[in-house]
């Protein structure tokens, strides 16, 4: 080890950081690939089908085959498209989905950058993701793509507000913007009852639903809306460019799952005190949230566009505002030391 | 975590106003168009509550709140109560007109109350940032009010002009304030004043900031050469809004000048005095001359406002407490008169008819001697003919300027007020000596007539015994500035 450090000399911190990034990103891409398989399998079983089962044992090599297929395909740039932006849009879509992982803690000390304003960083970075969609829709010079982009932009901006407010209640509970501290603040003798999802139950639900909307997943998938605007913003994309959008969407799903686990479900903490904390808990929680996403898709019909907007602006935002006040009052009120309340509202 | 939170009690009027206007906004949801009268009642109740909390506030001494960002002194209290009462008159006068033109909505009252909040914030600001926020609150509310008549091209144009010029003026003002901040290292008005008085700062940079501040002030006041928005806004906006624009914000403008020029930059008096002289000379000259050529009474009153603002500046540029008090008296009497003038213009209008041309005043005496007499009082006061409140206002301002040693300025102002008398007297001539054009009856409600009568009575009484108001202004200034 020392020999390697000496070999790079002053560049070692840079190389070490790059290594850590690779260690995060590569498994993430693997997870994306197998999430697509899981999606097809889960939905398949829910619809009493088998799902893909031909490539490899039990269809396990299906994502690899898909990736190779997409790599081999030609990238078609439509006439009249803005070439630079057309190619640039997928990059803009995937960049924030990967960059946000920098502050996500996997364990007590397992985090790439333990910054104090981690929560703000997450909110800022994820809010940039919409550009990929908007630019893709505009640069394609296609009506369907443009419609999809407009829908998606309005939807993402609307739900971001509700998500932001939900996260504000989290930071109020933990007195910190640091994600590691947020997880630590949920630690306690009562295990899973100590986690934020109990006192912030409405926010937890809103966060998951808004997360579904943020990632343009069913039932909020009007931005793609296969049955009305073909595939929305990425209708003109093919081959690898399309694959990157695909990657971005699933990476975003995994990110939302990780954030939900950290903010509301205690991250790497164990649900019961007699089993030790472990990174596996985090993965299990993420898998649970991801399963919820797939379940939603198999269950709910697509929302109409005005219903999406109404839900976001007239239900979620007022609800989060009310809960903000509730949490504030509970934190300051003298009765916070009553038997049950003092589990969460101490100090 | 310790909260360094000084008392907020002195800011009670502002808090009461904000809470009651938010309540009004909510309650208005459950009031349909037929019962909109209740919104009006609620708005008046909000004013009463605010006025009451001003009156019950501490008296006599200077108190600060919110860590010194808010100040409540005698001047603030007097101007606050004055603004609230004027606002009540504005609501009452504009009720029928607004109903006829589809403006009688909850938003109308909420926006008006927000504007009042901005005014009150400015009146008791002790910090540049707070001053600026109050100013912007007033400007934003006013802009929305002007544009409230969506389908009127004139109103939209006026709002657009106001918005662009107001944004420009805010930019100038902010630039000036940032210069002052850079020089003095503080935004708190007393600290800025102390820093300047300490005489360690290079005056060049202070004057550089001051120029921008005065330009911004000039715009808000509507003094020449920053007057371009006034005629268009007065003419273009619905008369009920003009009534507002022409009255309460002037009080705020006065307070703004007092806080900024006198409170913070008092030590730079030798620098701002000549600037104000130029603005006063141009405003008095241009306002009075251009007003003669107008055929629309709203436009005429707009130019008359410009000239009145010139007279208002005269008092301030004399740079002593007597001068400030004279200006305060001037602005108070101007607001009383102006409200009455636009109240009468509102009386003349009816469904589908504006009544804002000078010709509409022809033979008013035949149609309604009472209203004609009220207009007579107003016009005499505006012209400054003795014995009227307008006369005493001009007299006090001019004597202050005379004491400051600007004899030529006094002569100039008197000559132009004589020229100005022409167009005011022309209205009187139209009302009493010409034949009426139309014979339509005036549509009105008793409360409007009673209030106009009351307003006229105040003008009349103040014309005979102005001393009480002068004393009030004098005491307020004397207790607030040393």
């Amino acid at each position: 080890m020392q020999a390697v450090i000496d070999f790079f000399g002053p560049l070692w911190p840079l190389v070490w950081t790059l290594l850590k990034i690779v260690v995060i990103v590569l498994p993430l891409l693997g997870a994306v690939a197998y999430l697509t398989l899981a999606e097809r399998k889960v939905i398949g079983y829910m619809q009493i089908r088998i799902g893909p089962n031909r490539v490899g044992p039990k269809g396990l090599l299906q994502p690899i085959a898909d990736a190779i297929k997409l790599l081999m395909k030609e990238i078609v740039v439509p006439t009249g498209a803005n070439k630079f932006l057309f190619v640039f849009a997928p990059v803009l879509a995937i960049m924030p989905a990967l960059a946000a992982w920098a502050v996500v803690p996997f364990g007590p000390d397992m985090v790439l950058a333990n910054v104090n304003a981690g929560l703000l960083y997450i909110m800022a970075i994820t809010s940039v993701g919409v550009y990929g969609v908007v630019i893709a829709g505009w640069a394609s010079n296609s009506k369907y793509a443009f419609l999809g982009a407009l829908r998606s932009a309005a939807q993402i901006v609307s739900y971001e507000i509700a998500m932001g407010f939900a996260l504000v209640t989290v930071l109020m509970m933990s007195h910190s913007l640091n994600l590691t501290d947020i997880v630590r603040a949920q630690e306690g003798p009562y295990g899973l009852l100590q986690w934020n999802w109990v006192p912030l139950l409405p926010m937890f639900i809103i966060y998951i639903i808004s997360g579904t909307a943020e990632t343009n997943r069913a039932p909020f998938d009007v931005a793609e809306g296969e049955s009305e605007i073909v595939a929305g913003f990425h209708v003109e994309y093919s081959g690898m460019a399309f694959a990157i959008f695909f990657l971005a969407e699933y990476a975003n799903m995994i990110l939302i799952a990780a954030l939900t686990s950290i903010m509301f479900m205690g991250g790497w903490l164990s649900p019961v005190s007699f089993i030790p904390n472990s990174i596996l808990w985090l993965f299990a929680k993420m898998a649970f949230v991801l399963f919820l996403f797939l379940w939603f898709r198999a269950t709910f019909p697509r929302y109409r566009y005005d219903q999406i907007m109404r839900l976001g602006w007239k239900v979620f935002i007022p609800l989060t505002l009310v809960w903000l006040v509730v949490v504030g009052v509970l934190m300051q009120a003298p009765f916070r030391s009553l038997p049950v309340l003092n589990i969460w509202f101490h100090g | 975590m310790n909260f360094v939170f000084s008392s907020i009690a002195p800011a009670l009027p502002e808090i009461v106003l904000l809470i009651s206007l938010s309540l009004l906004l909510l309650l208005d949801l459950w009031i349909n168009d037929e019962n909109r009268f209740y919104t009006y009642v609620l708005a008046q109740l909000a004013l009463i509550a605010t006025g009451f909390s001003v009156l019950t506030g501490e008296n006599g001494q200077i108190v600060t709140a919110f860590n010194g960002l808010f100040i409540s002194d005698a001047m603030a209290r007097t101007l606050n109560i004055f603004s609230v009462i004027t606002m009540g008159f504005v609501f009452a006068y504009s009720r029928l007109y607004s109903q006829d033109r589809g403006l009688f909505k909850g938003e109308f009252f909420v926006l008006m109350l927000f504007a009042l909040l901005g005014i009150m914030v400015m009146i008791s600001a002790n910090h540049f940032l707070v001053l600026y926020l109050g100013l912007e609150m007033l400007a934003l509310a006013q802009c929305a009010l002007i544009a409230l008549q969506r389908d009127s091209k004139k109103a939209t144009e006026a709002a657009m002009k106001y918005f662009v010029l107001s944004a420009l003026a805010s930019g100038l003002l902010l630039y000036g304030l940032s210069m002052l901040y850079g020089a003095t290292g503080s935004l708190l008005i007393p600290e800025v004043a102390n820093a300047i008085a300490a005489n360690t700062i290079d005056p060049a940079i202070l004057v550089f900031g001051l120029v921008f501040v005065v330009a911004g002030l000039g715009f808000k006041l509507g003094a020449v050469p920053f007057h371009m928005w006034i005629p268009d806004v007065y003419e273009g906006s619905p008369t009920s809004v003009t009534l507002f624009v022409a009255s309460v914000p002037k009080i705020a403008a006065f307070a703004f000048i007092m806080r900024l020029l006198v409170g913070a930059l008092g030590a730079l008096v030798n620098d701002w005095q000549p600037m104000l002289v130029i603005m006063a000379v141009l405003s008095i000259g241009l306002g009075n001359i251009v007003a003669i050529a107008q055929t629309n009474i709203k436009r005429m009153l707009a130019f008359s406002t410009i000239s009145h603002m010139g007279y208002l500046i005269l008092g301030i540029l004399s740079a002593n407490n007597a001068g400030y008090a004279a200006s305060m008296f001037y602005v108070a009497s101007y607001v009383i008169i102006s409200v009455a003038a636009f109240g009468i213009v509102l009386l003349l209008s009816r469904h589908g008819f504006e009544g804002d041309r000078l010709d509409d005043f022809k033979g008013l005496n035949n149609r309604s001697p009472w209203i004609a007499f009220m207009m007579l009082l107003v016009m005499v006061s505006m012209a400054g003919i003795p014995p009227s409140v307008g006369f005493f206002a001009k007299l006090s301002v001019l004597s202050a300027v005379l004491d400051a040693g600007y004899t030529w300025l006094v002569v100039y102002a008197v000559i132009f007020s004589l020229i100005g008398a022409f167009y005011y007297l022309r209205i009187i001539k139209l009302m009493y000596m010409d034949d009426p054009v139309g014979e339509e009856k005036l549509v009105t409600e008793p409360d409007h007539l009673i209030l106009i009568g009351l307003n006229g009575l105040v003008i009349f009484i103040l014309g005979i015994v102005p001393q009480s108001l002068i004393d009030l202004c004098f005491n307020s200034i004397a207790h607030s500035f040393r």
Partner: protein
Amino acid sequence: MTSAVMLFTVFAVILVISALGVITARNPVHAALFLVLSFFTGSALWMMLEAEFLAITLVLVYVGAVMVLFLFVVMMLNIDLDRLREGFWKHLPLGAGVALLMVVEMILVVSSKQFATMTSVSNTTGVSNTQELGLLLYNQYVYPFELAAAMLLLAIVAAIALTHRRRKDSRYVDPAFQVSVKASQRIKIIKMPAEKDL
């Protein structure tokens, strides 16, 4: 050259180029995107000054929300740039003259000795920048903060008052009304006498 200076140079150059791009881009969408880039680099510069809260908020608010809506509008408008540029050459001499004058004035002002560079104030309290800012905002400056909040409420009221109204000249669909339709409203069964066969 220290690494901080190097980073600053890189960001500053990108910032200036993108700012130039905003005003020179022929396509309004490109101009908006350049603006996004300049916000981003500006935020990076703030980050270098350890003002992480301001930097992130700039991205969150301006890049994440304001510019998206801006782009949204710009994309939907069909701005004809050639028409906007019609008077460009005619007004150029005057504009250039004014610009030159302003540059000279600014140089005169800025080069005077009052505008010496200040030493930066570093955060020595040991509390994070964000927390420090929050304490200041909610204690010392709570009054302007609340006023700003009131002003946002005012802006909402003003915007809704000016734009929200039912247009009489447009036909619109009320989905709620459509959905609540009943079978009896769709089909009307009428009794008719049978037609005579030919």
